[in-house]
């Protein structure tokens, strides 16, 4: 049957609508694909011969990122110690410094900044590595050897992220609190006992649990987005080959960071 095409008058309005519609459809399609991708990766975590691969990825995502995460945590805590000290002095409540630093870190800054740091360090690496494997047919080679690429490449990374993110977040929180101690107590002279008493008394299990829930959500988001972008980099329409890998890496980092902040708001609104 002959296709009937209606005349389309191209003006700014139709262009805006068509662009919005196209992008919305693409976004919905990508989201659906990503959910299926994550589900496949998640269920393959529990297959045979995964343990060693997961340990290797924990080393890559977790162990090698720990130093940079702790360094950022230290300086974040130090800056907070400084800023909050001068703010609290104005209200005559310097004694609350420990509470302010620890609650900010455990509830909010720890999970968010750790996730962003891991995205920048390990997430971009994941995308680039998987992307290069895709364009050099290494992923096809896995399929031809009857090795499920999702099981071999994606599942260990998702599992390692789920394990590493909360651990690194706890390192970040701990070192951040120590950073606040350095500036607030050692440099500016707040009482050490008061600082640690306030830290201990103000943090409840609910705060710690909330921080960990966030870091788990971020782990899923970051690993899923970064692996997805690398795995399907050959299907990009804005670049091919090495350029596609580069663009996929940029997309992975940008989308992950934005999604971390959006998810942070959503999770916070649920757990508060």
């Amino acid at each position, binding site marked *: 049957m002959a296709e009937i095409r209606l005349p389309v008058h191209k003006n700014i309005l139709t262009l805006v609508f068509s662009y919005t519609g196209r992008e919305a459809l693409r976004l919905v399609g990508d989201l659906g694909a990503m959910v299926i991708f994550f589900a496949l990766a998640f269920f393959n975590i529990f297959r045979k*011969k995964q343990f060693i691969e997961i340990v290797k990825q924990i080393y890559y995502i977790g162990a090698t990122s720990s130093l940079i995460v702790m360094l950022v945590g230290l300086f974040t805590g130090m800056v907070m110690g400084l800023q909050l000290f001068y703010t609290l002095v104005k209200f005559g409540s310097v004694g609350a410094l420990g509470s302010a630093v620890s609650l900010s870190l455990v509830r909010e800054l720890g999970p968010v900044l750790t996730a962003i740091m891991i995205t920048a360090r390990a997430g971009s690496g994941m995308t680039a590595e998987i992307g290069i*494997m895709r364009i*050099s*047919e*290494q992923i*096809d*080679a896995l*399929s*031809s*050897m*009857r*090795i499920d690429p999702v099981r*071999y490449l994606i599942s260990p990374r998702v599992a390692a992220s789920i394990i590493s993110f909360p651990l690194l977040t706890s390192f970040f929180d701990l070192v951040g609190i120590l950073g606040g101690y350095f500036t607030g107590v050692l440099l500016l002279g707040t009482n050490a006992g008061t600082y640690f008493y306030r830290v201990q008394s103000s943090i409840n299990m609910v705060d710690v649990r909330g921080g960990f829930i966030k870091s788990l959500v971020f782990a899923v988001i970051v690993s899923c987005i970064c692996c997805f972008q690398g795995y399907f980099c050959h299907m990009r329409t804005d670049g091919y080959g090495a350029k596609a890998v580069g663009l996929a890496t940029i997309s992975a980092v940008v989308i992950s960071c934005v999604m971390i902040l959006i998810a942070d708001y959503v999770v916070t609104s649920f757990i508060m």
Partner: protein
Amino acid sequence: MESVPLIEFRNVSKQFNDKIVLNKVNARIYENQITTIIGKSGTGKSVFLKHIIGLLKADEGDILFHGKSVNKMDKAERRAYMSDISYLFQNNALLDSMTVFDNVAFPLRQTTNLNKKEIEKRVLQRIEDLELTEAIKKYPSELSGGMQKRVALARALVTDPKIVLFDEPTTGQDPIRKNMILSMITHYRKKFGFTAIMISHDIPDVFFISDRIIILWEGAVGFEGTYEEAVKLKLPIIGEFLRSLEGFQDELTGLLSREAFRMHYAGMLGGAATTTSVSAALFSVRMNLLDDVLGPQTALETLKLLGKFTNRQFNSVGGFSARHSRDQILTIFPHTTPDEARELVAGFALKLQQGALAGIESIAGRKTGKVVCFDIYIHAGITGIFPADEIEEIIAKAEAKQEIIATYRCDSGGSK
């Protein structure tokens, strides 16, 4: 009656965006044969192979395995089908973060329950077979293109597959290595009994080892059958295509290519209907025996040396030569009677025995690093040519008259 094909393409079509790559392709691949797919760049050769291994799905048509549609197989059948196939990628597709050993061991580690010791044994065997021992701890990026290809081949063969797909296995290799890889494919095919499906442009060598060829032409099958059938058909499109691939010279030996030889022969006999002044000699050396004793590389060096020696000796009297099988060289003497040809060949044999064959000992010693003991027998058969004789008839006549003309014997310390 033809047997049921191992793999059959029925009206398979594949399109990427607007480009039709495969257009209702019908092709058959038989068990325990080497089938070679040839065709110009972009005619869908790799796409053809990727359909077999399931990396691509046909838009239309069906692929049958032992008469059963791959699309209609259940999960277990499909898994069994896939486990029988190995694929050697055009760009090797080695895992570049793993060493050579780990790359070869990878499919065994991931898809079998073999213990560490057994995996190590099998991997080391394949690595040794493909002369990769010195590269065992290296990464793919530290290897030459040729070595990477051999690593990929070792990985493809380590699981002892029943069907091996070779996507241009000899690309980027020198003539000796190309022939070594082709010899190896033949050798392993005989040893393990797998079916080989290969994309290659190494004419004529690929014809010497192929049981059937499939010529892909503008997305469809232009020809399917043996090389001899392709030549007998004398379709201009096939002749032109084969000539364009083959060139005028045999890369390994420096002799004429088969197509160039045919053209020379046709041109020579075209006007001159003489019956007595044209003769031919068919030289042969038992390559299989040399392969076993000296290894494939030295055996090929021997053939190369024989080709060069033949060219040098007979070009001066107007003779022209080409390889017509892996280990046979046919020389035509345009203005020579069979008796004169016999004298020429006797002189050639003497020089060959005194000079060239003794030189092989040094090649063998150089390659193996030790004193090697081996025997070489060069056979030759001389026959007159009649104007109506086809090349295949000349070969048959000369083959019937073959006798040993030169010998290198180990027990007499050289030529006898």
